[in-house]
């Protein structure tokens, strides 16, 4: 158990270092932040001052080592555009994004598994085919179109749900949440549907394929031969095996969800990290961009670390393999 955890931890750190390196070195090439801060009618002298203050005149490796040292301490520097500690900005925006991603992931997984299991068991039923066609439409619809459609229908035409923002939020000190107020919950509905639809279809298709395969294995046939009831076979035997890849996909898709929240947050004006990031891209705000990349990678690595550990408990085959070694 220990060596298993340790090995994975080591890998996680390795990945993080590479990402940090990539994040910094890549962003180091992008644009000149001075212009984005000073505007078109600033004097040249003013530009030079700003350049000096930001340390942009230093060689790249000094900038990088400075960056790396700071990152370890949670210091991502100061936003070129917003002129605030990036760590503060991220801390401020993170709850919004994580709430959105969390609710979307939950939605995607729960609905995805239920529908996936249904379509996997009832392979050729009419409802299954409808679910599948709809799910494919979900994959084929770009996120931004879904968002625009939802806003147009539910906000502009029906006027029942808000088209932007988080609504009323409650500050718990370390976290601001929209889950405790009516308007906060209402504001969450459209963005989370928009964000989860794409992932949900993935989960549906994955679970379906997995269920279909499992239902043809020998051990399911053997269970049938033992007279085990069909429902128990479907929902106990097959489902448990079928859920294993869902755990994997959850790990991978969290990263995707966070990335796609860039689009959702743009369309819904959701005050999260994605909106912060896309703004940063427009303004070539390197500290925010690199912080965002590192945060996304960190969350991804963390979740996958948890997934690996979860595997250890769920799948006895891995446990045994590791214990032997």
């Amino acid at each position, binding site marked *: 158990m220990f060596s298993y955890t340790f090995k994975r931890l080591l890998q996680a750190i390795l990945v993080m270092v590479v990402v940090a390196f990539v994040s910094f070195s890549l962003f180091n090439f992008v644009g000149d932040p001075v212009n*984005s801060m000073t505007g078109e009618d600033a004097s040249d002298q003013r530009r030079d001052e700003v350049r000096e203050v930001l340390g942009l005149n230093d060689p790249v490796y000094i900038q990088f080592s400075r960056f790396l040292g700071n990152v370890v301490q949670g210091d991502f520097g100061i936003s070129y555009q917003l002129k605030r500690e990036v760590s503060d900005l991220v801390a401020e925006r993170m709850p919004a994004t994580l709430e959105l991603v969390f609710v979307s992931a939950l939605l995607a997984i729960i609905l995805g598994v239920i529908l996936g299991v249904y379509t996997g068991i009832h392979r050729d039923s009419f409802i299954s085919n409808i679910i599948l066609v709809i799910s494919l439409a979900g994959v084929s619809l770009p996120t931004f179109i879904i968002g625009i459609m939802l*806003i147009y229908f539910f906000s*502009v035409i029906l006027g029942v749900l808000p088209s932007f923002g988080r609504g*009323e939020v409650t500050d718990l000190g370390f976290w601001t949440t929209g889950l*405790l107020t009516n308007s906060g919950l209402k504001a969450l509905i459209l963005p989370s549907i928009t964000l989860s639809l794409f992932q949900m279809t993935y989960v549906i298709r994955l679970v379906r394929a997995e269920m279909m395969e499992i239902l043809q294995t020998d051990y399911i046939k053997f269970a049938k031969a033992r007279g085990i009831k069909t429902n128990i076979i479907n929902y106990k035997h097959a489902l448990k095996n079928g859920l294993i890849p869902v755990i994997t996909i959850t790990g991978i898709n969290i990263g995707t969800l966070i990335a796609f929240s860039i689009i959702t947050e743009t369309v*819904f004006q959701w005050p999260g990290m994605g909106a912060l990031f896309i703004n940063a891209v427009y303004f070539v705000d390197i500290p925010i961009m690199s912080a965002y990349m590192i945060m996304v990678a960190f969350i991804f690595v963390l979740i996958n670390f948890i997934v690996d550990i979860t595997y250890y408990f769920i799948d006895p085959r891995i446990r045994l393999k590791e214990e032997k070694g």
Partner: protein
Amino acid sequence: MKKTISIVLSLLLMGIFSPALANSIKWSMPGDSLTLDPHAQNEGPTHMVSRQVYEGLVTPGINMEILPQLAESWVATSDDTWVFNLRRGVTFHDGSSLTASDVAFSINRAKTAPSDMVDLIKSVKSATAIDDHTVEVKTDGPNPILLNQLTQIFVMSEAWAKANGCEVSYNWDAGETSYCASNANGTGPFEITFREQDVRTVFTKNNNWWGNHYTHNLDQIELLPIKNDATRVAALLSGEIDYTNVVPVQDLERFKSSAGHVVKMTPQNRTIFFGMDQGSAELNSSNIKGKNPFADRRVRLAMYHALDMDAIKDKVMRGQSVPAGIITAPGVNGHTAARDQRLPYDPELSKQLLAEAGYPDGFELTLDCPNDRYINDEAICVAAISMFAKIGVTVNLDAKTKSQHFSEIKEGDANGMTSDMYMLGWGVPTFDSHYVYSYLFESSGSWNKVNFSDARVDELVAAMGVETNLEKRNAMIAEAWDITQDNVAYLPLHHQVVNQAAKSNVDVPIRMNNEPLFRFANVN
């Protein structure tokens, strides 16, 4: 545990039953104020927010006329000395009274680095409190536009600033911050009671304001920045916001025709134009090598005649623009209706001119364009490209975000290549043509990126900077315009129009700088 539950419950109840105020405006624009420190950033949206909370000695009125505010009256005692008499009985939001030393402190604070207002009031040498209600301002020689400049200088409480460690402004560019950046204590009609930057700012009516409370009937203003145009429009349509001072032109018609909404518009002090590099030996992106087509006035003129600005006004701007013949807005000293008359749209003449200049088959080059700076900037460029194509000039578009765009115009791209042709907009905060010359036409002008150079113009620009005889000075301005217009130094496009939309029960007066003055706003 019990305590936690009760806290959560009360928070919940607060959330659900947050009181709805009778007269409130939910206001939205694409961006937010960068800082509440009134001197840390000289930037539009920042002033828009500050203006509701802070006040200056004088202020621009609804029609940009200069009105007394904290100063009741003033007099210029000599060429370089101004004396302001302060209004009495004015208090800050924290209850302290306004004195002359607060005013002197604020002006001095604004002209001390790292304040961002330093450039604006460079000419102010000193500000001193003569007594509790009199302030003396000394300038560096005569300054005809001092009052104009002072409209942008907001007055803070000296005691409050010192107590909170913001005696001087802070270096916003370097990422510093201060108490005054996230808190405000002004004398204005509204005070800020909640602020989450870029998300939500709440202004509440200041009941102790000195001014006429009946020019507005608001209890509260909520600022909800929405960057995306379509989302902002949707929010107004769905009633989530009441008012926005930035409306995409194509949606104006919808709000206009809607019984539930009102639209207002007025010309803006900003002119959009194309610059053509006429000074370089060769264009970077052109297929013509060894010479610069734009060096030939006929080519520049041909480009001018190719532009159908009425079509652009009609289709791209939905009527929300004033085609321009001069790159300075109406109302600016030096602007005349005659100069603002465009040369006719005449592609045939263009072709003829090109042929005369030796380019019967046209040529090719790249146009640099911002895509998030001016109203429909990118669309204007695309439309212009198809117009240029009709006279045989193949223009490739390179549209990008404003920061990159300005950087590339100013300093060239990553490879040091300067722009051959670009779009730019210019506003004249001083309402005087000299401002335009010194940046755009003077050989050494920092934004003269078309490399226009004319000895006479340089001479005139230098002279008008010190000329105090208004008549003489105006003659110089006129002569300079004659030369530059005749040279077709730039291709003027149009003057932008400011517009705003609101629910029909919301009345916010429109101003040419797009800045709302909520003290004149009403909810019916």
